[in-house]
Every structure is written in structure tokens, then in C-alpha cells.
């Protein structure tokens, strides 16, 4: 294998750590960060190695604790790239840190799309198909073969994905930085990231109202229809932008917003509006 041959001994050790730490990315999964806390957990060894003082480490840790979601075997690839960018940031004083999350956000959507269909849609079905036949014949090997087959590919992908991401990042990010092209990259990555966040806002944030005006047994106003005529997914988009305004203006913390969402939702449910 050629991948990662240029890494030194220390970096190879970090790669093994990345492999072990990227596996449990989703163990603390929650709707706000998804695998974001796991992402930061996986990057901790890199952050501790690259940054010597506490403020820089805290800033890096906070940066990496953001919404992140993708298929696990491909997650390490993004982690590798993020790690290489943290390294560049530690070495270069005027590195634009917003490029890190821009690139993460740009990559997670497409990788999740490919990863979910390859691993859940194709490879799992192949492995399960073989295992089902074995289980029907009463062989205890069925579950074992299923796990070994599926995870061999799963783990190989996860290990080499991390190495590939890190070495690609190390090679190109510093070259891009030295050529003064990082702002071009950041802008392009932010555009891709914003498009993906727009698409995710529609697919992840769901809302439907049940407000219905009925007069004499005839429906005269179906609010959801009216809202859809104005703009589809209008309410989720407005709620997302509202949360964004609150967070950016530091008017409310995450806990307050989450609590508000729960209270308002139950209230709306009592009124029969949702």
C-alpha cells in the first residue's frame, strides 16, 4: 500500500489512534451535534500534539465540536483532512480557521450519500444474504460470518480513509496556503457548505401544521397548503434562521433554544395546531 508511506513514526501512531477513536463517533449522538462530539473526541490526540497552550487547544476543540454526520467508514477521511488543517493552523499564524468547518460541511453530505448506499444498501445486503442462507441451514457460523465479512471492509475503509485524508490534507493544504490561495479555497468550500446546509435544513428539520378552518363541513383553509404555496418548508427554514440569529447575537444559548422548542411544540400540540 502506497497510501501514507510518507508519514513519520509519530504520525503513524496518531493514525492508529484516529482509527480507534473514529469508530465510536456516534456513541454520544444527539440531534444538535449528531456525531460532532465524537468528531472532537477523535481529533483530541492531534489537537494536543499540535497546540502547546491551553487557549489554542480550547479553540480547536470548540471548532471541532460542531454538527457532523456521515457514514462511519468515511468519517475518518474527513477527520484526517481536519487534522491536517489543524496542523497547518498551528504552524501558520494567519491561517483562516473557518475553512476547516467549511470543508467538513462540504464533505459530509456527499460522503454520507455514497457511504450509506454502499455500506447499508449494497455491502450489508450482500453479507446478510449469505448469512440468512447459512442461518436457515442451522449453522452457528451465520452471525459470525456476517460480522467478519461486513466489518473487514468497514474497518479497512476507516483506517485507510483516515490516512488518505491526513496525507492528502498535509500535502495540498500547506501548498494551497503557501500560494496564498487559502481564501479562495475557504470561499469555495463555504459556498459548497452553505448549499449543503440549505439542503439539510429541508431534509432534517421537519414541521407540518394541522390548522384547518372548516365551515359547514367544508374545508375553507388548509394552512399547510397555503404555507406550501408561499414557499415549501417555509417554517423549518424560518425556525433555522431564527435559531441562527439567536445564537449569533448571543441572545440565547443552545439549552434555552432546545427548551423553548420543546415548550412551544407541546403548547402547539395542546392547541391541536400540529
Amino acid at each position, binding site marked *: 500500500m502506497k497510501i501514507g508511506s510518507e508519514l513519520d513514526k509519530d504520525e503513524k501512531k496518531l493514525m492508529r489512534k484516529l482509527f480507534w477513536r473514529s*469508530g*465510536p463517533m*456516534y*456513541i454520544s*449522538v444527539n*440531534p*444538535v*451535534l449528531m456525531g460532532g462530539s465524537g468528531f472532537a473526541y477523535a481529533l*483530541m490526540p492531534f489537537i494536543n500534539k499540535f497546540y502547546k497552550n*491551553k487557549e489554542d*487547544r480550547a479553540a480547536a*476543540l470548540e471548532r471541532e*465540536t*460542531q*454538527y457532523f454526520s456521515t457514514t462511519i*467508514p468515511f468519517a475518518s477521511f474527513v477527520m484526517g483532512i481536519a487534522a491536517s488543517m489543524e496542523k497547518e493552523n498551528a504552524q501558520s499564524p494567519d491561517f483562516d480557521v473557518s475553512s476547516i468547518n467549511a470543508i467538513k*460541511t*462540504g464533505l459530509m453530505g*456527499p460522503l454520507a*450519500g455514497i457511504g450509506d448506499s454502499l455500506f*447499508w444498501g449494497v455491502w450489508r*445486503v450482500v453479507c*446478510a444474504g449469505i448469512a*440468512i442462507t447459512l*442461518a*436457515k441451514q442451522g449453522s*452457528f457460523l*451465520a*452471525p459470525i460470518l*456476517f460480522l467478519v465479512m461486513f466489518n473487514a471492509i*468497514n474497518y479497512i475503509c*476507516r483506517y485507510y480513509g483516515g490516512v488518505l485524508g491526513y496525507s492528502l490534507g498535509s500535502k495540498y493544504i500547506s501548498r494551497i496556503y503557501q500560494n496564498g*490561495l487559502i481564501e479562495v479555497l475557504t*470561499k*469555495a468550500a*463555504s*459556498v*459548497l457548505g*452553505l*448549499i*449543503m*446546509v*440549505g*439542503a*439539510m435544513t429541508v*431534509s*432534517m*428539520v421537519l414541521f407540518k401544521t394541522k390548522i384547518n378552518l372548516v365551515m359547514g363541513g367544508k374545508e375553507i383553509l388548509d394552512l399547510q397548503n397555503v404555507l406550501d404555496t408561499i414557499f415549501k*418548508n417555509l417554517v423549518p427554514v424560518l*425556525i*433555522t434562521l431564527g435559531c441562527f440569529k439567536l445564537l*449569533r447575537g448571543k441572545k440565547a444559548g*443552545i439549552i434555552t433554544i*432546545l427548551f423553548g*422548542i420543546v415548550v412551544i*411544540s*407541546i403548547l402547539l*400540540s*395542546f392547541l391541536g395546531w*400540529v
Partner: protein
Amino acid sequence: MYDAIIVALCVFIGVAGHEMFGMAMLSRPIVVAPLAGLLLGDLQTGLQVGASLEAIFMGVVNVGVTPSAEPAIAAGLATVFTIQMDGKLGAIIPLVWPLAIIGLQIINMIFSFVCGPFASKFLNYAKNDDQKRFVHLHFGLWVLHYVLYALLPFFAVLLGSSVVKQAINAIPHVIMNGLTVAGNLMPAVGMAMLLQMLWRNDLAIWYFLGIVLMAYFKLPMIAIAVIGAIVAIAIAERDLQLKKVTNAGVAVATNQGEAGTSEDFEEEDFFK
């Protein structure tokens, strides 16, 4: 009691192991059912139940919040009821299925309302570089999440499935409905955090392109990603050309000495 503990343990090993070992598929019926069968002393039944349920669940991909049934709970319960009642799986499935559907709802509730509020704790620990607490919380939530998860099959076996179904139906519908609505809205906070990172007033229009592509064109994520990449590359190429022109302008200016400074200055401003 023993049966209940074993089934809860198998469901825990399945779902918690699946996450701990990086999407290891331990939560699939083909694994959970034979494991439960083995521990309950009837591996053959476990294998048969596992094969049948795996085939049933083949199409069900658990990505995000989907109104289907939960495979690990279904597999654990189907195995123990088939062994206990010495019955045919066909008769057991109608008994197990409603519980597996309720199971998925409960799991979404745990996901949203037990794990959700901890998101800000993670950020607080990160802000203070408190890595020890961060890691403890990361693994602590894992235990909490999946122990709660395993309680449903535990009580279902201990008390019988009909009792559990009644208990859950006793929760007022408005509350459950409200919580579901809230759970569906919560990802808005994650999206808002990403926007906080990426938002630039001059680039904000692209956010709405993503919205329109998904809401109206209903394109798959991957298609939107490719469109996004094309737009990003086109923008990067134009920026590179502009940069070249600006740099060339600066080079010419330095060659000419002081002469054209003010003009070039204007030009540079224009390209910014």
C-alpha cells in the same frame, strides 16, 4: 426474570456495540437473535428467527428519524417469545411488531430529550479544554442511552407485551405528539450552529440555492453535492483568474516605479 435480563442484555450488546465498534452491525437481527437464542439455550430457534427477521428488515435502513420498527428489539423479543411459547414465528411477529414500532419512537425520544440537552455541555467542556470531562460525557452518554434503550425489552418480557403496550398508551397523546414535533425541529439548532460558522453576507444566497434544490427539485443529497461542487469550483476558478490579473497589475506597477500607483490602486480596489 432471567429471560428478561438476557433479552435486555442482548439488545444492549447489539445496539450499544453497533455504535461502539463503528457501525459494526451487531444490532442486526441476524446477530441479536442467535445470541439471544444461545443464551436462552436454543440456538437453532435463534438462528431461524434471525434469518426470517433479517430478511424482513433487509429494506429498512435506519437513517435519521424514520417511522419503521426497531430491528434489535424486534429480534430479541421475537426470539424469547418463540422459545417461551414454543410457537411459530408467523404467530409471534404480530405480537412483537407493535412493540418494535413503539421501541423506535422511544429511542427517538431518548435521542432527542435525554441526549439532546447534553450538546451544550460538550461545547462548554470544549471551550475550557476540559478534555477529561468531555471524554467521560462522551462515554457516559453511551451507557445512559443504551441502558434506557434496553429497558423496554426488559419490561416487555418481564410483564408481558400487552402490559407494556398499555403503559405506553397511557401517556397522553398530546404530550407524545408535542415531543415528536419538538424532536423533528431540534436539528434546526445544529443547522444554525453550522450557519454560524459558514455564514457570510455575500455568500448567503447559496444557502437558499440548497433549500430550493431540496424542497422543490427533491434532488438526492449526492446530486446537490455535485451541483454545489460545480458552483464552488467555478467560483474558485474565477477568483484565481482575478487574483492573477491583480497580481499582474501589481507586478506591472512595481516595474513602472511610482508612476502608475494611484491608477493601480483603484484597479486593485475594484477586484477586491
